[in-house]
């Protein structure tokens, strides 16, 4: 909140500058008009602070309009990578800005405005991708089901919370050791966040021919090799 207070003090001065107040300066009493600062030169966080501190509705909306306009392309690009087509991306982007507008008063300035907007965009698009993915694979086979059969699991009954946690830690360690950064990202997005592979290819800007699928295949191979190695070490 201290950061927010500092921003508010600064922005009161900025508002004065923006409103073009006259001020006397120095012993010569030369009145100087402080030129209003163009909206384009204000930071995102300054625009949010001005929006929250301004009583006049029309002026408030001008700050928000400028704030959103300068972030259109960022959100548009993000949504386009999730959907692959501009119409669906436009729908997602509309929802994201609607949510951002409704929640604007909760922006705390602990991070940059664009990071805050990213969180809204990320969650909304992931939820949409998951929803589409579930509809598409309702009758399909879960390709993660036989993925980790080779991982040695010493727990006798894998159905308690503690044993589940133990399996998860083993898996975590195995993935961390076996996979490179991109393979891990593809794994997390596909198996944990349920993002379809074509979406992951666009999101991570994978330029190889088979996209994310090739990384899944490579990762499975590496995991199987490492699991086998561990099994052999365990037996010897």
């Amino acid at each position, binding site marked *: 909140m201290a950061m927010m207070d500092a921003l508010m003090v600064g922005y009161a001065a900025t508002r004065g500058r923006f409103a073009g107040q006259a001020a006397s300066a120095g012993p010569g009493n030369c009145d100087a008009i402080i030129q209003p600062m163009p909206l384009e030169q204000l930071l995102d966080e300054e625009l949010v602070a001005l929006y929250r501190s301004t009583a006049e509705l029309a002026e408030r909306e001008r700050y928000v309009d400028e704030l959103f306009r300068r972030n*259109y392309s960022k959100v548009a690009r993000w949504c386009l990578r999730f959907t692959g087509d501009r119409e669906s991306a436009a729908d997602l982007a509309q929802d994201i800005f609607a949510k951002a507008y409704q929640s604007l008063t909760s922006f705390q300035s602990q991070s940059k405005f*664009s990071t805050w907007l990213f969180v809204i965009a990320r969650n909304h698009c992931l939820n949409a991708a998951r929803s589409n993915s579930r509809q598409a694979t309702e009758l399909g086979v879960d390709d993660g089901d036989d993925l980790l059969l080779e991982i040695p699991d010493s727990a006798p009954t894998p159905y308690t919370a503690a044993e589940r946690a133990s399996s998860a830690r083993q898996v975590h360690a195995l993935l961390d050791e076996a996979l490179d950064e991109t393979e891990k990202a593809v794994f*997390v997005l596909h198996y944990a966040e349920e993002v379809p592979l074509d979406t992951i290819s666009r999101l991570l800007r994978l330029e190889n021919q088979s996209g994310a699928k090739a990384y899944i295949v490579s990762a499975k191979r590496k995991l199987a090799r490492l699991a086998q190695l561990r099994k052999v070490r365990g037996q010897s």
Partner: protein
Amino acid sequence: MSDRETLKSAFAATPQCLTPDQLEALLEGSHSNPHLAECPRCQTELAMLKSFESGAPLPDEGAAVAWISSHLDRQLTNIKSGKSALRSVGKKAELKESWWAKMFGTGGMRWVLPVAAVAAIGVASAVLLHSPKAPELQANAGGQPAIYRSQEVHLVSPIGAIKAVPEELRWQAYAGAASYQVVVMEVDHSQLWSIESKELTTNIPASVRAKILPGKTILWQVTALDAESRVLVTSQVQRFVFDQ
């Protein structure tokens, strides 16, 4: 427990996982964090934040991003008021369903389709039987050089080295275009400004002109759109430099 559930559990957030502002600090390189090296989830979150913040669009994204940005600008009032804004996909589906429902619904309209089909066959027959034979189309008519339809929008000015900061952008008309999407970019293709215009010229706003500095290369591109805002064709990316 299935392997998928094990994987989800392995990648679930822990109390040590990084917050968005911590990820932001890592992105800016101002901090390091030992947890990142051992957490695939946080590594993925950082990759996604990087993708979101990245200013450079992919080569095939520019026109679509510009279209979406224009769409958002037109819908901004609706977005803020919480009214159900124009839903591109939903509206198309709704229109298609209502037409379909009218043709094949249980109401008194079932007879429309077969009657319309018979009428269409009759009209087509009349046209085929009675229309005069149309001349063959030839690209080379009467000895003139062959003329072929251009496959891109041609940009007129500004191009190359210029002696003053331009006040407007100009391009040639493209047949069938109802409007044009104009995008002005930095040399790394990050977008400076975009606008949709029904004319063949657009004024450059003062805020954008202020960014056209001596020696700095600026790129611009124009996409021709039809009446339903579908992309017809896109120009080459043109560049200019204010050579003071």
